[in-house]
């Protein structure tokens, strides 16, 4: 058994003297680490200095900030993370420094890997939501939504979802976008040194989570959006709770603007830091606020609408410079756009069912079980065996607060996925970090990590 082998190799080996066994020998990741400069291929280096391989080498060299790369003995490699307060969890960056200038950077990930895609193959489609909701733990409802939409497409019931369920999904995913961006403002503030912003961001996010708790029963990891609809209807008084949030936020957002945008120190810490161009951002596959900060107006809600986003009015916020300040400003203003959408949802929320009445997919109402033998059988089958999904494969991508979150499911006709893959936006976005950091200061590295806003839960899955 391969796992056991891995666990015992170090233990059984003759133990070297305490002096010989260095820390790096225990914690090292071998080939995954930043390689020596001599061992680095020209292609890799070109990619890092901004040549995204659609331009010639001379063009790429002209773009590089540093005229010539120094010798190896003039530089120092340091580890930032995995245990570092500004790495948002367990991101580890190996930085090559010359003085205080970052020359190269390599993100090393996997410290939070728990095999969630493998776990997803063991769980039925009914249980799958509990798994995917834990990936991006700051926007759990968007994860569930991507998974549910993929399963519904495989089942062929994506057109049958009742209107109320669709609008409820939009309501929840927009509120989730607000809570996620509020937390970004908090952590971004903390990383740059505006510690009071941390308290405000967490405080406001908690108001949104309190609403989620009332609706779903949990602050996070809801498993509320399920294949076929939602787990329950909105509770009584939900409209007032949402309005409370919407009425509280504008004045608080103005306070943030005074505290952050209005402050020269804040602007100077972010403006011109971690710059990336539109072409580079697209070549590296980034999405969400990072892509939009470069001026590319690309938002799946607007340009490839899902749910009923084509029926609500909102703007796609784009930046111009592709720097950390743009990414901050985009998220701040996306909260406002989400509020606009939520107001429209409040006006238009239809009456009706909150899940599709297809007894093969959704469990019957509790009362029916007492009076109908058939309902009891359906209930039993759904919660033991799960529902079967026809053979096929499908990819569904939606706009999460961090970018495109996609779910690729292959079904073999049984009641659990044959393969379940999540395209995690943070996993792709951190690829852009080495390029954003190159030539900047170590202190700015913190600003860059923060502006990418990675969630390591979905990076490592």
């Amino acid at each position: 058994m391969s796992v056991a082998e891995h666990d015992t190799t170090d233990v059984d080996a003759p133990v070297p003297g305490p002096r010989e066994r260095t820390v790096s020998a225990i914690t090292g990741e071998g080939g995954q680490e930043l390689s020596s400069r001599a061992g680095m291929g020209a292609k890799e280096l070109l990619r890092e200095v901004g040549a995204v391989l659609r331009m010639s080498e001379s063009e790429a060299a002209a773009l590089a900030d540093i005229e010539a790369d120094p010798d190896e003995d003039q530089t120092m490699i340091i580890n930032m993370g995995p245990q570092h307060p500004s790495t948002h969890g367990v991101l580890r960056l190996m930085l090559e420094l010359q003085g205080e200038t970052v020359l190269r950077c390599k993100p090393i990930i996997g410290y939070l890997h728990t095999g969630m895609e493998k776990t997803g193959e063991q769980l039925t489609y009914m249980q799958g939501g509990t798994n995917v909701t834990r990936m991006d733990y700051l926007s759990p409802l968007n994860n569930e939504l991507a998974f549910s939409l993929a399963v519904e497409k495989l089942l062929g019931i994506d057109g049958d979802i009742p209107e109320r369920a669709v609008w409820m999904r939009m309501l929840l995913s927009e509120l989730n976008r607000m809570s996620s961006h509020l937390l970004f403002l908090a952590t971004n503030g903390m990383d740059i040194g505006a510690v009071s912003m941390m308290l405000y961001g967490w405080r406001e996010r908690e108001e949104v989570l309190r609403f989620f708790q009332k609706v779903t029963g949990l602050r996070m990891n809801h498993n509320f959006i399920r294949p076929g609809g939602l787990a329950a209807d909105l509770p009584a008084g939900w409209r007032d709770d949402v309005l409370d949030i919407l009425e509280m936020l504008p004045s608080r957002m103005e306070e943030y603007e005074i505290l952050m945008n209005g402050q020269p120190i804040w602007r100077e810490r972010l403006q011109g830091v971690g710059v990336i161009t539109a072409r580079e951002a697209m070549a590296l596959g980034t999405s969400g606020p990072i892509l939009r900060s470069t001026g590319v107006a690309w938002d799946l809600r607007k340009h490839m609408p899902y749910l009923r986003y084509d029926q609500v009015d909102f703007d796609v916020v784009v930046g111009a410079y592709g720097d950390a300040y743009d990414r901050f400003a985009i998220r701040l203003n996306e909260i406002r756009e989400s509020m606009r959408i939520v107001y429209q949802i409040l006006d238009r929320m239809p009456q009706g069912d909150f899940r599709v009445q297809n007894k093969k997919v959704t469990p019957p109402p509790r009362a029916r079980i007492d009076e109908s033998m058939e309902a009891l059988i359906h209930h039993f089958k759904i919660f033991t065996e799960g529902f079967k999904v026809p053979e096929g494969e499908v990819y569904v991508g939606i706009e999460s607060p961090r970018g495109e979150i996609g779910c690729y499911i292959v079904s073999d006709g049984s009641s659990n996925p044959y393969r379940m893959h999540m395209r995690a936006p943070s996993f792709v976005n951190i690829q852009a970090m080495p390029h954003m950091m190159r030539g900047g200061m170590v202190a700015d590295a913190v600003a860059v990590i923060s502006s990418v806003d990675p969630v390591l839960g979905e990076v490592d899955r």
Partner: protein
Amino acid sequence: MSDNGPAAETQEQLHGCPVIESRGQRVVLVPRGDYVKVMKALVADGFDMLVDLTGVDYLQMPDRNVGAGVVPERFEVVVNLLSISRRERLRVRVQVPGDEPTIATLFDVHPGSEAHERETFDMFGIVFEGHPDLTRILMPEDWQGHPLRKDYDPGRIPVQFKGANA
């Protein structure tokens, strides 16, 4: 078995590769030899963004119908492309045999494929030839086996409880 059989005269083609529909989504079935060539041609068509690249191990579905008469192999590399200008998605599926799990890297076409290819190598053991840094990305460097393969035994870590044999 669906009706994706060899209906040669109606079969839609894209750069010489058959196109099939999967739940309303367009899928191109590309032979392994033409992989990089077709991807470059698709970039020229406007599919300039690689959204996702992953693998599937079809060990337990050897007789599946890929469609358009394509011979199924054990592994499949699945690439999801996006065209921002055309607002379209396209999926590319490549059959990769189990006894020789190698395929060319897309690094030169889409630099953003780097982490995806490392992950697919880590999880499936599919080797991307020409990749600049093909190392494990999620699992530890000295890990044995490739966890998302269907013949990989997830195993269990023995847990000891006080006074009980578990």
